[in-house]
């Protein structure tokens, strides 16, 4: 019997050893490129194709890239300004996405809408259309409507996140007893009021997830922002700004990968912090996916 126990212990040690080994390898795999950018951002002579392994363990740390990035002025646009723009844009997108996703999820979950199933399926399938098919028509439509600006961008960013999130929201709201909002209605809130103040709060994990997805979607987008905002340097987002700043789209400038890397670090840190802080919320939100009926 003692042997049984020992055998169990040995198999446990083997299992954990393998686990840690895989985790370490994967952790290395995930972090290596990021570490690489991080180091590049502190280097003086920039190159994404590192020419020597010693770049990975630099002897000197230079802040020139950051200095240059934060102080440079590109025709009136500066990186801090673009970051600010990006944050505003991404923040608004997050808010609108959350509202849209939760309202839709609420409707799918709670309300009696004719042909709900067909509608939901339809909305879901419609998101299958690729960007290449929708980009030009969207641009033309938004140009006609004078929406080639932040409002237009927010409108264009929102549905992608929202439709996906609406399905998760639907599942989460399914799990919230309807008595919560009913009691609020009896206590004097309208249905929408109850939705805003009670359901949104109870579905916080999904709200957080949607907000993160919406935020990062807008924060990181390049293509759409590029085509919408290009003519106005001061309205650029950080991604566009960084591109030009680093000279990537500008053939005649010397490439400045260290600046590029510094920008990536500045842009990446808040986002990574956001992800790490809300990882538990995300996990909880996604776990409602598992709650689907068998």
């Amino acid at each position, binding site marked *: 019997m003692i042997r049984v126990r020992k055998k169990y212990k040995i198999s446990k040690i083997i299992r954990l050893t393998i686990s840690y080994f895989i985790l370490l390898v994967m952790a290395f795999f995930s972090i290596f490129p990021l570490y690489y950018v991080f180091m590049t951002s502190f280097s003086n002579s920039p190159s994404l194709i590192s020419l020597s392994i010693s770049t990975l363990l630099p002897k000197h740390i230079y802040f020139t890239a950051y200095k240059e990035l934060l102080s440079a002025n590109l025709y009136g646009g500066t990186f801090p300004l673009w970051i600010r723009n990006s944050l505003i844009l991404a923040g608004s997108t997050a808010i609108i996405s959350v509202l849209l996703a939760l309202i839709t999820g609420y409707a799918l979950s709670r309300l*009696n809408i004719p042909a709900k199933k067909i509608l939901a399926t339809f909305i879901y399938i419609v998101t299958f259309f690729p960007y290449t098919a929708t980009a030009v028509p969207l641009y033309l439509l938004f140009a006609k409507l004078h929406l080639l600006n932040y409002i237009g961008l927010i409108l264009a960013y929102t549905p992608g996140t929202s439709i996906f999130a609406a399905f998760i929201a639907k599942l989460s709201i399914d799990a919230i*007893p309807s*008595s*919560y909002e*009913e*009691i*609020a*209605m*009896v*206590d*004097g*809130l*309208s249905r929408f*009021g109850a939705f805003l103040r*009670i359901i949104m*709060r*109870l579905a*916080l994990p999904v709200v957080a997830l949607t907000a993160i997805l919406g935020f990062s979607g807008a924060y990181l987008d390049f293509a759409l922002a590029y085509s919408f905002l290009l003519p106005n340097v001061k309205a650029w987002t950080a991604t566009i700004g960084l591109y030009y700043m680093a000279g990537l789209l500008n053939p005649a400038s010397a490439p400045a990968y260290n600046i590029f890397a510094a920008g990536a670090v500045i842009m990446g840190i808040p986002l990574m912090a956001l992800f790490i802080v809300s990882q538990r919320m995300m996990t909880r939100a996604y776990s409602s996916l598992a709650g689907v009926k068998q």
Partner: protein
Amino acid sequence: MSYVKLEDIWKEYESKGKKVQVLRGLNLDIEKGEFVVILGPSGEGKTTILKIIAGLLRQDKGHVYLRGKIVDDLPPKDRNVAMVPQNYALYPFMSVYDNIAFPLKIAHVPKDEIKKKVEEVARMLRIDDLLDRKPSQLSGGQMQRVAIARALVKGADIILMDEPLSNLDAQVRVLAREELKQLQRSLKPTIIYVTHDQIEALSLASKVAILHEGVIQAYGDPMEIYREPNNAWVAKFLGNPPMNVLKGEIKDSSIIIGSTKIELPTKFRSIVKEGQKVLVGIRPEDLYLNDNGPLEGSVEMVEDLGPYSIIHVKIEDETIRVIEKSITRRERGEKVKLSIDTSKIVLFDQESEKNLMLLQSKVESNE
């Protein structure tokens, strides 16, 4: 004047293409200050009724009157009713204080007034030391009290309760029941209380309404209904263990049940006809183990429940439940004889399953 009135309420649900007619012309009249318990099996539409009263659902047909006025088109927030839902629905992200204060905050009551009111009601319900806690840190009984406090704090005089005790431990439930009763006695709100637990119904209600097949089957004093149920369904539904209902026939001023003959109590003489097929209802507590009793059978099972025991006695083909106070020591298989308190038996028509006595009095009052 009735304080809460439901008039010919119809309600149909549709789910997965199937229509379910839940309420079918339900009528209910509740006086001010009454404690009405709506009792019915699961899924019969009890919650539906409450939601219709609160305005959370709209009836398909019929009208709801509150305080004498028709409210069909008023949204929930304007009906001035309070509600304690099945699971209390305390907002998990708010403290007890905020939970109770929520209805007042919505109504934009000034802060210090909110504080005063919340503290008052909390003191009344003895939860004033819990105000800082989150609902997850409360026991079931405490949660119930908080939910009631939230219902009371608005000052609504109509309170709807949806099985508020169903999630509680047996022990706590007894206490909670007592508390609730005391509360109603002191504040005199009109309470409409929904449950499928008849102990609750019987012990709490000033009036009980028994819901079945979309209508109120019986409505009135609980003990009256207990003693004189409208029909065999109510008879079997009410009471735990349920009433024994046996098939019988009237012959020679007697009731013949199988091979047993019981004297027909005088009060039934004018009501039944010779040869009429009836259902005889006998409460388990009206049966006595008695060596001289007319019924004879063998003990099939004994359940000792402490204060009393339930003895299942097999008589011919049917099993009859008998209650004996305190602990019994009957053995399985033992032959026993039973006597009946015939003054308490109830007769139903075998076909319509209606209570013959009440049928008669109705006929009379109609004449």
